[in-house]
């Protein structure tokens, strides 16, 4: 029974990877050890079978041209990726600007629409600063309302407070 180390040595010998000293030692082993010889023969057979049946691919062009073509393709793809990233960065800058600006515009429109009274509706108490009302007497209260339909502002004075 041979160990794993010997199996690897036999494989390396078959592939021609051993030094002359190591190769001599493996040859001696395979001559005297039946198991080693049997494994060596099996590996040799396998190698010959694989080598004979391996499909050989022939390049349609020269080796240098073939690899330079691959290199050019890689470079082209890398350039395209870089351009894409730049475009994405530019569009994200616009998005960063446009998104809040758009949201603000929508908000302003909503506020304007919300504050705008429907035509003909009566508005209670004017909103602008030109309207001021003051009631100095404690026993009197007042409130004012504006009727846009009638074109009038009414200041109602209530002097019946208890």
């Amino acid at each position: 029974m041979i160990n794993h180390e010997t199996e690897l040595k036999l494989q390396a010998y078959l592939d021609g990877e051993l030094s002359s000293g190591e190769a001599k030692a493996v040859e001696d082993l395979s001559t005297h050890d039946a198991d080693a010889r049997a494994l060596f023969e099996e590996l040799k057979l396998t190698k010959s079978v694989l080598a004979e049946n391996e499909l050989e691919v022939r390049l349609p062009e020269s080796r240098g041209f073939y690899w330079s073509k691959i290199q050019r393709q890689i470079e082209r793809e890398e350039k395209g990726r870089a351009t894409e990233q730049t475009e994405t960065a530019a569009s994200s800058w616009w998005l960063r600007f446009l998104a809040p600006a758009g949201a603000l515009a929508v908000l302003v429109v909503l506020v304007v629409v919300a504050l705008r009274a429907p035509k003909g509706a009566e508005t209670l108490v004017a909103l602008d600063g030109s309207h001021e009302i003051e009631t100095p007497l404690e026993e009197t209260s007042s409130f004012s309302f504006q009727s846009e339909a009638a074109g009038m502002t009414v200041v109602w004075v209530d002097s019946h407070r208890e």
Partner: protein
Amino acid sequence: MKKIFPFGGISLTTVVLFFACSCLLRSGSTDLALQAQLVWGTNNDKPDDPKLKEVDAKVTERLRTALKWKNYFEVNRQNFTVHAGTPKKVKMSDHCEIEVDNFGNSSIEVKLYGKGKMVVKKTQKIKPGELLIFAGDDKNDTAWFVVLSQTEK
């Protein structure tokens, strides 16, 4: 030496005159011609005092759109002019007086006095055709009104 503004003196005078004219046109007349009416509102068809006459139909219609009373009778009417910066006091009845101050640009301050005491003070713009009304309720579900408006020139 070359002047920055050619014809400097003439140009400057023209600009100053232009702005002065613009300001004068913009401000217009600073005097405000107003009318104040003391009105009594009731749901009765006839006034308690037969001497009272009905308020102008157009004004009555406008009052009816915003107020609950059916009929409005004029107790007193005063036409007066208020100069800017010179408050004008107008007596509407024995117990009721108004004081109007002209702030310019149709902006006025109106003080309403009841039995000599200031009851309410209101500041706002009064445009031609608009009414500024001071009101309060009275006995038997009636009400009094002081109706202020700009008089047509």
